[in-house]
């Protein structure tokens, strides 16, 4: 192949990527690959690709080859030498993603990827494989959970006279010392690493103040993280969650997870945020159905771990939202 042909096909490929990026940004599908906070980089990439592609088509340095490469000694000329098959392969590598990107950009990760990544697999498998089985820590954790339960049960009785509204556990009533100790034990020392309470202080206050927590795209990751950290604090409140459904291999028909993928930078780092539900109504719900579920927050023991779940649920089928993923937002300026 002559260098002119190479330059031509490369120009076409660069324009192809420009069109791909433009299409993704225009339709908003870009957010199925990349978190919104990365967008400035993609406007940059779009412009650069367009400029490079245009320049490439009108590039005339094949005449001044000698000159040019003498000057820079990068000898990219080497790139233009080789067998036809090699180039067919290399250019196919570039062309295929342009087409799969344009044609299949609407695809949204669902139950299949959720199964690969696993929901709370860390908890479940840790117990199954016996990592904690002979481990003092796990027994402490279990004991601690028992204690918590008893205490919160008695606490409820004592606080009950008002009897109107759901039982509220006032964080302030629990002595600071106990709570810290509790959390430390509860989390098995260094096992729990994120502290949602310190990351979402305002959200936590809002959740404690309201009787009905509604999960939105913006508070999704925060609500789930807070529920995971300290489910007991929210028991009895109503909660509305939207998400797609999936089941792990060992789930029963009436169990499923409603959740959404949370993304930090790109879809490759997606993780599942969701709630495990159990209800007979769920039997006929298939995987990858989008639901809006409203119910009362309750805790459930799942292989020695306490998780938040919903009881007395009402379910409603909904359309997949335009933006099916939720994004982890960190305000770096607050540090």
């Amino acid at each position: 192949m002559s260098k002119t042909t190479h330059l031509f096909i490369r120009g076409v490929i660069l324009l192809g990527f420009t069109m791909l990026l433009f299409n993704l940004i225009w339709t908003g599908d870009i957010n199925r690959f990349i978190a919104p906070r990365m967008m400035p980089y993609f406007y940059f990439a779009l412009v650069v690709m367009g400029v490079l592609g245009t320049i490439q088509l009108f590039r005339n340095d094949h005449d001044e080859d000698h000159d040019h490469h003498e000057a820079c000694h990068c000898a990219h000329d080497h790139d233009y030498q080789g067998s036809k098959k090699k180039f067919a392969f290399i250019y196919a590598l570039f062309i295929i993603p342009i087409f799969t990107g344009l044609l299949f950009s609407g695809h949204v990760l669902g139950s299949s990827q959720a199964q690969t990544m696993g929901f709370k697999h860390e908890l479940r498998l840790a117990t199954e494989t016996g990592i904690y089985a002979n481990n003092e820590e796990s027994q402490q954790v279990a004991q601690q959970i028992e204690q918590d339960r008893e205490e919160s049960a008695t606490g409820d009785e004592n606080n009950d006279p008002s009897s109107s509204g759901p039982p509220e556990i006032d964080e302030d009533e629990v002595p600071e010392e106990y709570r810290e100790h509790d959390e430390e034990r509860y989390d098995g020392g260094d096992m729990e690493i994120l502290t949602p309470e310190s990351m979402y202080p305002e959200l936590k206050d809002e959740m404690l103040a309201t009787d009905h927590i509604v999960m939105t795209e913006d508070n999704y990751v925060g609500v789930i993280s807070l529920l995971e950290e300290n489910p007991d604090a929210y028991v009895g409140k109503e909660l509305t969650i939207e998400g797609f459904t999936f089941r792990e291999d060992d789930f029963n028909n009436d169990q499923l997870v409603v959740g959404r993928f949370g993304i930090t930078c790109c879809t490759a780092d997606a993780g599942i945020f969701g709630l495990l539900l159990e209800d007979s109504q769920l039997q006929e719900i298939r995987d990858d159905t989008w639901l809006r579920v409203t119910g009362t927050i309750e805790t459930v023991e799942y292989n020695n771990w306490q998780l938040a779940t919903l009881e007395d649920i009402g379910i409603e089928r909904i359309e997949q939202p335009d933006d099916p993923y939720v994004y982890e937002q960190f305000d770096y300026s607050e540090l």
Partner: protein
Amino acid sequence: MKGFLREGVIYALLFLIFFAFLFADTMALDDRLNIPSRVLDFNTIFLSIFLEAIPFVLLGVFVSSIIQVFVSDQTIQKYIPSNPLGAIFPAVIAGAVFPICECAIVPIVRRLMQKGMKLHVAMVILVSAPVLNPIVLLSTFYAFSSDLIVVYARMGLAFIIAMLVGLVIYAIYRNKTNPLREQFGAITHEHQANRSFTQKIKDIFYHASDEFFTMGKFLLIGAAFASFIQTFLAREVLVQFGMDPFLGPAVMMAFAYFLSLCSEADAFVGASLSQIFSTSSIVAFLVYGPMMDLKNTLLMLAYFKARFVFTLIAVVTFIVYPVILIFQALMF
């Protein structure tokens, strides 16, 4: 005649892309064709890794082109201590100050070498810049805010490891020839001077597109492998090694290598695995991934001789692993 045919094919290709560009969304092929969702998952993750890398590769390419055209060899020589061992420490500091990720660092480092930077100094920057990096520090801090030991260990160990890598590379390659592929060897600058400013700008753009293709093919292959692992490797497989003091860090290093995550995002993935893996395994994941991963191995292969790339991987691996084990023994 043959040339005509070839041009015709390329025009047809351009037309097809344009057609897909206009009508892809109305066709909704993914619903109609009934493609298994795992294949589409693979495609989505593959594209997301590739797309995510594009702006940073382009940035790296432009920075390297600008260094090429506007920074003279003398300037670089001036700022690097002439004592080869004395240059290692400033190199780590340089790596720490510049927020350059692992995709962008490869063309930059190669350009610095062409400008006369010593191999071992360049390698120190290559492994340190993606980890010791203000943005990575912040994201790690967020992900591990209640377990700051992970943050300190990541940064501290990366610092020590980058210096050790520099020492070992210096010991091995002190008397050997330049491991850059021949066509990227040293530059002699006689012709550079008499090019006009417009020509220089044109050169930058020509280089940028040439380098996009040189690196792009490796990036695509790397993204495809990484996506394959992401889509088909059930995380459960990893769990059984989680708390093993020797296998845990090794498995997490391998996992980091194949996942090829951006160093800015890997802290969050690390945090999600923190319950099944020991702290030292998580630190191994966070230190090793940005220094060495599949994507950046392939990017390096674009410029360096294969033998050198594999030596570098071996050096980094056999430094990170024992350092992690020592850290583990001291801490726990």
